[in-house]
């Protein structure tokens, strides 16, 4: 008895915080299944009957198909690129075999740049992208994304590669591996858990990124989802129902994955916390 009573009291703040934490999103989810007219009659009614067709309308008539495609292209290509390049560099920075004179200073510099505020690069990146014809292209955005997340990716993967025992490397070498095959056939497979962590971290960052997108993309056809939402908010300020549907389209891919892989997501996001 003395045990259960305090526990019941503990549940009060837990439930209050849960309402605070989940309430706004659940509310949006309900509105996403209701028409704007219904919403203006009562903002808090349940979606009965649910209008699932709104997702189809948003997708086909309000451009979400193309925004979603742009976001998907940027995210997938950038994640694949950064995972390849970042894993190789993490390996190169970690193993004694590849040590050279300024390697540790280079790594320190890389590590410190995790803290750089984007403003210190963004204006000149704007200039540079224009000069190279990459302004207003998804390719330019992808290159910038990969570069800005490289330091934290390398930092995380280097820590993992550094733990792999030296004997592993020697065994691979005796089996006839060269640098390239040793990395891809032996080391990279061992590092899969760490690689998955950085992939999730980068996936979420790229999917949600807004600052670089807002500065480097001005053409409507190549807007990513976060950018599109910012414009839709002013263009269709009063069409709350459709906007809510759009917000669900933008968040559901991540949240559905989170539902199944929540431990991995938590691990990825907390590992990336060094970034701040």
């Amino acid at each position, binding site marked *: 008895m003395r045990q259960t009573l305090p526990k019941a009291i503990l549940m009060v703040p837990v439930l209050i915080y849960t309402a605070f934490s989940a309430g*706004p999103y659940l509310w949006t989810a309900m509105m996403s299944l209701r028409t704007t007219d219904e919403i203006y009659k009562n903002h808090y009614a349940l979606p009965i009957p649910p209008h699932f067709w709104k997702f189809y309308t948003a997708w086909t008539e309000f451009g979400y198909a193309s925004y979603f495609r742009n976001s998907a292209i940027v995210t997938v290509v950038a994640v694949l690129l950064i995972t390849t390049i970042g894993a190789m560099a993490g390996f190169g920075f970690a193993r004694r075999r590849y040590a050279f004179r300024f*390697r540790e200073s280079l790594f320190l510099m890389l590590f410190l740049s995790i803290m750089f505020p984007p403003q*210190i690069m963004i204006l000149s990146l704007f200039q*540079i992208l224009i000069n190279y014809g990459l302004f207003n292209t998804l390719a330019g955005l992808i290159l910038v994304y990969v570069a800005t997340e490289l330091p934290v990716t390398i930092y995380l993967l280097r820590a993992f590669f550094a733990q792999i025992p030296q004997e592993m490397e020697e065994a691979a070498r005796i089996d006839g591996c060269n*640098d390239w095959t040793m990395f891809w056939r032996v080391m990279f497979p061992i590092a899969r858990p760490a690689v998955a962590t950085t992939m999730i971290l980068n996936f979420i960052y790229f999917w949600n990124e807004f600052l670089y997108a807002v*500065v480097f993309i001005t053409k409507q056809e190549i807007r990513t989802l976060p950018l599109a939402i910012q414009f839709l*908010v002013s263009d269709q300020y009063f069409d709350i129902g459709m906007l809510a549907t759009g917000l669900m389209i933008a*968040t559901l891919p991540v949240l559905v994955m989170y539902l199944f892989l929540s431990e991995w997501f938590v691990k990825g996001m907390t590992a990336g916390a060094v970034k701040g």
Partner: protein
Amino acid sequence: MPAQPPETADSAAAPPRRHRKPWGGIALFLGPALCFYFAFIIYPVLVTFYNSVHTLLMDRGMAYEFVGLQHFKEVLLEDDVFYKAARNSMTWAVVAPCVDIPLALILAFILHGRVPFARFFRTVWFTPLLMSYPVVGVIWLWVYNYDWGMANLVLRAIGLGDYAQAWLASPTTALPALILVTTWMFAGFNMVVMLAAIHSIPAEYLEAARVDGASARQRLFHIIIPLLRPTMGNLAILDFIGKMKQFALVWVMTRGGPMWGTETVATYVIKRAFEWKTLDLGYPSAIAVIWFVIIFGLSYGLTRFLQRREALEF
């Protein structure tokens, strides 16, 4: 980037020749990353420093004109908006950790106390972090709506209807309202990190204290909290730096208004570069340089300060 040919297996055949540097391997593994890093991070940073002592007339094909430290003088001595923005950013960066970290600590303790469905709550509380700022911004624009927003709805429901107001329309409430949004996003995340830190405290410490007759409260304040201090310090620094860079939420929700009430340095830089028709990239670059130095100095100083304290305490 030209593809590097795979290195030949010379080293495999002869392990004793290890003193020969595998430059091929080094270039292969580090080359691509360093190219990216120097082309898209280091070079742009240097260009920003260079630009900050020039005027760049965008309307005249980015014509450079050297002006020395004039921009810096102007920013620091004459620019009221910069000081307003800096004050908002600083307020955000100081207040947010002061709210987020204790809140997260309390939540972590509660979940640690073997509350039923702890995993479920943890999963839910973490979710806001997975949404983009524009999504969060739109949702909270609705929450703060005067007529039908959730914030005023709750106030009216609990009899505090007199406090219901247009939260984002007044310069005094707009910034606190935005700070609450970032707390909503980050408290769950901080909680998860702290919960992990609590779980990693060796059970023997607590057991030994129990054997020595320490009460639950004493164990909390004399063992758990002191051991969590490094974690809390790190989280506070991260929170601080993150808020010093805050851009997106403001951009979506208030655009810095009303009356510069939520302008941050990050939004001001972008506004000066692309929205004000000054068509000069030099001046905002100078602001960026100043802010870069401040963020870097403060985060370095804070880290050192915390390390010193740890060294003294243990």
